């Protein structure tokens, strides 16, 4: 027999006072202004400075857009980031789906393994890939030893090596963003569709994929922006001929000491990421409209 005990509080309850106005935004705004807006403003200012002239100038911008080597670096950055974002999203999707639906005790283990790469530093992980991919590395040595190849395959010091390394680094972020989205999809929708005769493939195509569009876009954007701003992995796995914006900014700041030109590169990189974010959000809202979500 169940017993229900009713009691009254000994002290009168304090009324919950709703937070009004912009008060909660003060602390984060201060942090953003101090550590993001002001430094960004300074960097924009530096981009108009000249190493020789005192007055503001567009010389560094003009140099950026007329230099084929720099523009090739920008194009390389876009291609590399797009490929990494694609690989991260495609690889993270099935893993995130399994984690969203699984109920066995293995779920925790697989979730831990999925985010485990983040426990090691990015430089450590990149050196790990270098040991595996380089000409005298594990894969090439094994293939040569077995007689399958006579010359090492070009697995590092190129785009392939960088995409592999960055995908490994960024994959956990893709899994987490997709997992949140997939967990929000009611499993009964899938069951209902299957009861009504839909095949497993049709359920994925017509229910799961459309409803997880926000997660897919979010995973792609995270992958793209993290890859575009990555320095260590392209520097170590890309080799001398593989220059991307982040490595070129580093060179201008530390070796050539041309800070205005470095600031221009950093600004262009920022605009590239903002553009990717804008296109991603527009794409997401269009897909929502198209799918009547």
């Amino acid at each position, binding site marked *: 027999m169940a017993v229900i005990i009713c009691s009254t509080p000994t002290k009168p309850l304090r009324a919950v006072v709703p937070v009004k106005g912009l008060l909660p935004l003060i602390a984060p705004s201060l942090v953003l202004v101090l550590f993001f807006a002001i430094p960004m403003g300074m960097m924009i200012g530096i981009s108009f400075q000249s190493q020789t002239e005192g007055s503001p100038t567009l010389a560094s911008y003009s140099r950026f857009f007329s230099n084929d*080597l720099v523009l090739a670096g920008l194009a390389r950055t876009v291609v590399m980031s797009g490929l990494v974002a694609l690989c991260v999203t495609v690889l993270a999707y099935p893993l995130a789906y399994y984690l969203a639906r699984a109920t066995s005790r293995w779920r925790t283990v697989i979730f831990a393994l999925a985010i485990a790469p983040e426990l090691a530093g990015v430089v450590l992980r990149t050196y790990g890939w270098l040991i595996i991919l380089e*000409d*005298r590395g594990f894969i090439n040595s094994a293939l040569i030893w077995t007689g399958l190849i006579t010359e090492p395959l070009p697995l590092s010091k190129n785009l392939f090596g960088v995409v592999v390394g960055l995908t490994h680094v960024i994959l956990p972020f893709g899994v987490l963003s997709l997992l949140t989205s997939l967990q929000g999809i009611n499993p009964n929708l899938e069951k209902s569709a299957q009861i009504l005769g839909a095949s497993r493939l049709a359920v994925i195509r017509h229910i799961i994929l459309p409803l997880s569009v926000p997660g897919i876009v979010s995973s792609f954007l995270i992958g793209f922006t993290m890859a575009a701003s990555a320095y260590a992995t392209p520097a170590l796995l890309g080799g*001398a*001929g593989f220059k991307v914006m982040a490595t070129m900014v580093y060179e201008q700041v*530390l*070796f050539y000491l041309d800070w205005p030109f470095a600031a221009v590169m950093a600004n262009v990189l920022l605009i590239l990421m903002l553009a990717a974010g804008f296109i991603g959000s527009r794409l997401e809202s269009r897909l929502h409209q198209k799918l009547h979500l």
Partner: protein
Amino acid sequence: MRYTALCAPAIVSMVLAANGHAETLIVNSYGGPYETIIRERIIEPFEARFGIKVIYDAVGSASQDYAKIKATNGRPGFDVVVMTASQSLEGCKEGLLEEFSPEEVPNLEHLSSVIAGVAGPCGAVHEVQYLSLLYRTDKLAERPNSWNALLDDGLKGKIILPTFQNVMAAYLMEIFSVAHGGDLLENIDPGFAAMAKLAGQSIGFEQSSSVMETYLKGGDVWAMPFWNGRAQLLVDSGLPVDYVLPKEGSIPLVATLNVPKHAANRDAALKFVNFFLEKSSQEAWVTGYKVGSGRIDIEVPADIRAKQITTEADLKALLLPDLAAVATRLSAWGERWERDVVAAAK
């Protein structure tokens, strides 16, 4: 009572420190074997003589340290820093580094004018290395005596080059330029042509000297350009390697002590710079780290003198580019390197 007795010395030392009795100096330089040797040969004797406590900061390369000085407008948090002559000239031009005077750093007058002029008024030259040709003694039948040995067919696929962001690359190009009929600055076409050929010989490019070393240690590389100080460390480690100063000559790496313009402990910093330039300190440094010196009056063993820059004749035999002029051309040279040299390696 017991607690009072325990706390009293700590409180006294805090008060003394606050009153300036425990003077400190922050020296920024390199880690590894460099740190061990500088601590033993320079820092400990300096502390013993002046009673100044040195805090050694091994974080950051010379270029990162210079960027820190520039970003903080001469207040980087350290008082003395080890950089290069190029950074000394740039920092002086930008007003970020202290200009040394013979009144405050008397030992400057003992430096050879040949090398002191290279670093300008803000750099105290405490060490001179040169770009050497480092090779595996167990792989090469003969000791190479010319930079052109790197172009021999026998070394195809057995050399490695620095990326252009390692200053060795620009200097090697200039050396080849002079060796092939050009000069150090204006007519550098022969240098780039030779570097393009050399790129075809190489297994690739690496920016870090320590990574370049691994190829030589592993036997994948048999010869490469390398600063002779680091080359000597490899010789001393027992590897089957040796290095030469080829007959065409070499360009030095002029290492300097610098004091940021707004260093917190300026007076102690100037004392340290002067101490490092003393005859006995230079002898201790040259014999300990096995590098050359800008002082030509030092007395060192014959085996060290044979391999290091220690005399006026050694200094005059070096190729000395105008580093300020090189700095203005570096960006254009870097682009040409990408087009002519890196492309030739593919």
